[in-house]
């Protein structure tokens, strides 16, 4: 079984010193994805939550580290959610990044040729690709799902 959804992303990027990022309080409803020692992505469940998260993070750094940079990068990413027990296989057709057994896991690497951030969770995989590649990645997902008889559904928002 497999379903693929494309949706707008909800991502806030924080750039600050490693210590400041380490001590950023947990933002409810978000996943923390540490891209680099000085770069953190907060993946929110909804676009509204992204806005709230951006405000909260900005407030926090205004006090903790005024030089930090907080940007709502939701529009820079496009989210593809692969759900079902075939999700790992479909992912493996478009990326050489190994999916770890332990979930959830945050990974970075190329997917369908574009730089991507990957959240491997239990039962689903969330891919963040540059929003400029939204058509390209959707098209490649359709390519690799073509001819599947297990009822793969592609829903593109």
């Amino acid at each position, binding site marked *: 079984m497999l379903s693929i959804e494309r949706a707008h992303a909800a991502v806030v990027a924080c750039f600050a010193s490693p210590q400041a990022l380490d001590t950023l309080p947990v933002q409810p409803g978000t996943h923390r994805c540490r891209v680099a020692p000085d770069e953190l992505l907060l993946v929110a469940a909804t676009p509204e939550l992204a806005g709230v998260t951006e405000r909260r993070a900005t407030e926090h750094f205004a006090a903790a580290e005024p*030089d930090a*940079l907080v*940007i709502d*990068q939701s529009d*820079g990413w496009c989210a593809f959610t692969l759900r079902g027990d075939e999700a790992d296989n479909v992912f493996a057709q478009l990326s050489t990044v190994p999916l770890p057994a332990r979930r959830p896991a945050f990974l970075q690497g190329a997917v369908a*040729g*574009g730089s991507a951030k990957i959240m491997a969770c239990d039962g689903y995989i969330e891919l963040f690709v540059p929003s400029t590649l939204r058509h390209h990645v959707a098209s490649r997902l359709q*390519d690799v799902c073509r001819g599947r008889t297990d009822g793969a559904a592609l829903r593109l928002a």
Partner: protein
Amino acid sequence: MATAEPRSAGASFEFEGRTIPSGADDTIASALFRAGVRTFSRSFKYHRRRSLYCLSGDCPNCLMTVDGEPAVRTCVTPAASVRRVARGAGWPSADRDALSILWRLRWLMPVGFYYKSMIRPRWLFPIAERVIRRIAGLGPVPREPSESAKERLNHHPDVLVIGGGIAGLAAALAAADGGERVLLVDEGAIGERIAPGALRDRIGVLRDAFARHASASILERATAFGIFEGPLVPVIDADFLHLVHPARIVVATGAVERHAVFPGNDLPGVWLGRGASRLAGVHGLSPGRAIVVATNTAEGLLHLDVLHRNVTRQGGGAVVAAVVPASLASGVPAGIEVIADGTVVEASGSGALRSVVVEAAGRRRTLRCDALVLSLGLEPRDGLLRQAEFEAVLGAGDVARPGCSAEEAEDDGRRTAGAAVPEPAAASSQSSAPQLGSAEGFVCLCEDVAVEEFEHAWDEGYRSTELLKRYSTVTMGACQGALCHAHLKAFVRQRSPGSWTGSPTRARPPARTVRLEDLAAGARVPLEHHTSLHERHVASGALMDWAGTWKRPSNYGDVAQEYRAVRERVSVMDVSTLGKYRVAGPDATALLEHIYPCHVGDLKPWRSRYTLLLNEAGYLLDDGMVCKLGDGSYYVTFTSSGGDGAESWLRDWTDERGLTVHIANVTASRSAINVAGPRARELLSRLSSDACDAQAIPYGGLREMVVAGVNCLVIRVAFVGELSFELHHASRQSEALWDSLLDAGREFDMLPHGLDALKLLRLEKGHILIGQDTDFDTTPSKVGLDFAVKMSKPDFVGRTALERIAKLPRERSLLPMTFAGARAPEEGAQLFADGAHVGNVTSSRWSPALDCGVALGWVRHPDGAPPSRVMARDTIGHTEGVVTKGPFYDPKGERLRA
């Protein structure tokens, strides 16, 4: 000769006009053999008849065109679902090939003969080449186009085992028992090449035990063709291009029987032991009515046994003699003549084997026979293994210890599970290196190279394996050296023992040939970036074209109209492809001061500056803008093509200088629409209550505005030479903003404009396009951009170089020029001044504003000042031009500074 029916009836395929039946276990070759086909191909150089030999996909003899695809190895390809088979070379046919006369003319074609002939007269070779080309090749290129939809599939097992023989299965099982995730691949179906018996049964047991593990996977009819750095092992099967990324690899690809060299060794009827054994034991066919077996190994006796039982039982013939060492004589079944300690020295027959000559105890005997089966030792099939350089790769079984027994092979496989470090292969039970027989006898079946040619080449001075290989082309054919590499090495080592000259030739991928379409699986679709307005452009009928990896609108149907809209009224353009970055942090100013040749620190908030990007040699990499925001951070832009390189540039210099800078790539999350034209301000004021007059946003300034309900950072820009506002906004609102602009723009008869119009507009202003008007070594002063460089700055990237270059006379310049005739020159036109060739035109258009041609071109002037008049020669003719100064249109820049 061959009489047994296929084991189970069923399919058939067409072969050169005949219908050939095939059973479920048949390969194409076995089905053809059963139907009486004996000539399977014609050899490459001499067009000699070739027939089945190895039955393991290692020799070139069975290559045919299958379903339009040339050079298919029919001996390992199942016959089921095949429709059409034909032989490749041969004129008029493979059965009656007129070119077989080339064998009789071989004395005219010694090794390297083409290097020694046809030098004179000079018209001879072009004619000869045409003839050669007509008869060359293993088969015709396919006529039908192919549409392979194969994709990639990545695997990350702990262990990859290549080869599902006894050693490979033992290795796979041991690893799986140890808890590792194991992928086992075999290029055929496991066990299919082995005649029914103890070995085949054991393989079945191991396979079942392995398959019971949840973490075990098997891919059959899957060919691993290379071990690449990673390690990465690509494997092709019918469904996918599998890319395997194992932590360690076990190669158990086995061995090929030694190819013996003696006169007549390529005749139809000469078989390798394993091949004949498979033919009889698996396919139920007899290689001949009178079979001679020559072997010096225990394995060979097994083959002899298989043949003896199967062909005698079917009544299709008999093994008449066995040429074996005396020590193995007791293993020969009763009723077969034993020739002890004998050597096969010749095989003869006209077009097919009729007799062999065996030498024993100093005497020669001629044996009449129609099949000669040779099992004279093993050469490891180690092409894949030798490709590995420093990966964790172990060999197991015949590939590491050729000739080991089945028990030894199984042990070997098991041991790989525990081995931490690759052990050197133990001394094999193999006898010494192959002996090369007399001068005749083919060493290389693929390329028709005989021993005599080696000797000839050696005499001429080609005295290393590599030179001998290239000169004679041995090992360079389809078998990739499987049969002949050992002979090449042996030949050189006998003559130069211990020398570097006898090194094995480099093992290069692929170990098995691979279809290009399989290699390309999953790689056919290039990356294509779309802006947030892509759908809008397509919907309005724009002509979209590649700009780097982006798709952008070239025009919306009428370039002239788009141009006029910009010059006379107002127009909009999607410029979202610009590279855009937020740069912040304690050292942001220091970084930008270092990478830009202009001042940055003195920029006040809400002010911008045009910037160049130079490399350390002082050469132009890119251009763009730097904007200072209200909070003290920066917003910088680069050209669309320079965008990705710019990020590396920013980050590398940050790291290099140990700075703390936060760099966020907002190229995708921020889009930009350029509103340009004398009425731009009016348009904006229809959609915004924020002021945008010269006071609020002066030239060189920027401000935040809400336009049509969308928050925008509005930057005054200059590229097209009109009053222009670049609206940078969140990409999710692009379509709404664009729609509102077009809607409000109706009042002004507004059209959007694309790249075609842009190129003309910017050229009228004399603005350069990086990459089109610049070369890799363009300095700012050569293109009139000195104003963007402040040499008074103590340091910036490229400063030292520019200082040095400033002391040299300038010998080339990019100059603006006008052409008053009937047309502008073509881009690429060559420029002449005073009769001398001085340069070329890089940009050129007919300017509606000036009613003449305007161009930029490089002009060499090593003797001082550049010329004032030039002549441009293009494919149409030539035009006369005048070198001018500054922008063609609105030289004072009054329009864009409004």
